[in-house]
C-alpha cells in the first residue's frame, strides 16, 4: 500500500488516517505488532516525530496500544474496530447522499436507486 500525502493538510493527520485504514482493512491484523516509528517513517518518507504524533493519535483513538516491551500492538477489541469502520463508512455514505442531493434526489430516492442498482 502506497502512502499518499497531499499539500493542504497537516501530514500527521494524513498519516493517522492512512494507518487507521490499514488497521481496519486488516493490513495490520488485530493483536499484531505495528512496525516501529522509525521503520514506518522511513517507509512513508516522513520525519519520525511526525509519525510518532500520528501513532499517538491511534492510541488515543483506541486502535493501538503501547506495550512496554513489544512496541505498539493493534487493538484486539473488535467493538472499537467496528466503530471506526462504521464511522468511515458513514463518511462514504454522506458523500454519496450529498452528490445525489446535488442531482436532485432525496435521501430516500437515493437509497432506493442504490438498492435497485445492486440487484
Amino acid at each position, binding site marked *: 500500500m502506497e502512502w499518499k*500525502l497531499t*499539500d*493542504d*493538510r*497537516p*501530514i*500527521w493527520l494524513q498519516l493517522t488516517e492512512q494507518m487507521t485504514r490499514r488497521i481496519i482493512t486488516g493490513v495490520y491484523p488485530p493483536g499484531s505488532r505495528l512496525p516501529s516509528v*522509525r521503520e514506518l*517513517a*522511513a517507509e*512513508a*518518507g*516522513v*520525519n*519520525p*516525530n*511526525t509519525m510518532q*504524533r500520528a501513532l499517538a493519535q491511534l492510541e488515543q483513538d483506541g486502535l493501538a496500544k503501547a506495550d512496554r516491551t513489544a512496541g505498539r500492538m493493534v487493538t484486539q477489541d473488535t467493538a472499537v474496530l467496528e466503530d471506526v469502520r462504521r464511522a468511515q463508512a458513514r463518511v462514504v455514505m454522506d458523500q454519496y447522499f450529498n452528490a445525489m442531493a446535488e442531482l436532485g434526489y432525496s435521501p430516500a430516492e437515493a437509497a432506493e436507486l442504490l438498492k435497485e442498482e445492486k440487484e
Partner: protein
Amino acid sequence: MSENLIACRGLSKAYGRKAALSGVDLEVGRGRIVGLLGPNGSGKTTLIKLMCGLLQPTTGQIEIGGLPVGTETKAMVSYLPDRMYFANWMRAVDLFDLFRDFYRDFDYEKAIAMCRSLGVEPHDRLKTMSKGTKEKVQLVLVMARKAQLYLLDEPIAGVDPAARDFILHTILTNYNEEGTVLISTHLISDIEKVLDEAIFLKTGKVMLHETVDHIRETQGKSVDALFREIFRAQTLEGGEF
C-alpha cells in the same frame, strides 16, 4: 545539557557595507529536522557558516549546545558545505581515513555501508565520479558522524529527483536521534515532508519560524505554497528597470 541546541541572539553579519544577516534571534531544540528556507542571497549559507565557525559574527552571539562557537562546538557539528573541497585524486576511502583521524564520532563501517546503499564504489577516485556521485560521497562523510548538529547546505541541489528521495531517505535513517538536522534549500516541496520546522529567511532576517504542521493547519496550504506566496512579489517592488 542546555535545552536549545542552537541559540542566536541579535546575530548580524556584514560583508563590508553589505549586510548578509541582521539581528537574527533564533532558538532550535534537539531531535528536530529543520528547513532553512529562503531565496538566493537571503543569508542561508552565511548563517550556516557562522554556526560552524567559518565566519565570525559582526555583532551578536551564537551558541551551540550552550557553548560559544569554537573547538568544542566544532566537534559536535557535522557540516556539508555547498561546494566540494576535496582533491580530485583522492578516493572515497581516503576521505573516510581522513575523517576517521579528524573526528572521534566518525563511523568508518557505516560510511562504507552507506556508500553501498547509495550505489557508490568507495574505491573509485573522485575525478571519475559524476557531480551527483561526489555529492553522495560528501553526504556520506557528513552523515556517518554521530554529531549533535548536522548542517546541510543545499544537499539535494545537484542530484536528480530520484536520487533526491534516496538522499532524504539516507538522512532520515542515519541521523543521530538526539541530534538536530538543519537543511538549507530552496527546493522546498522535495523536503517538506521530512521537516519538523521551517525557518524562512528574507534579506538577512528571520521572518517565520514555525512547525510544518502548524503552518499547514493555520494556513491550509503547504510550506512550499506559502513560500511562493511570500517571496513572489519581491521583484516587482523596484518598479521600472
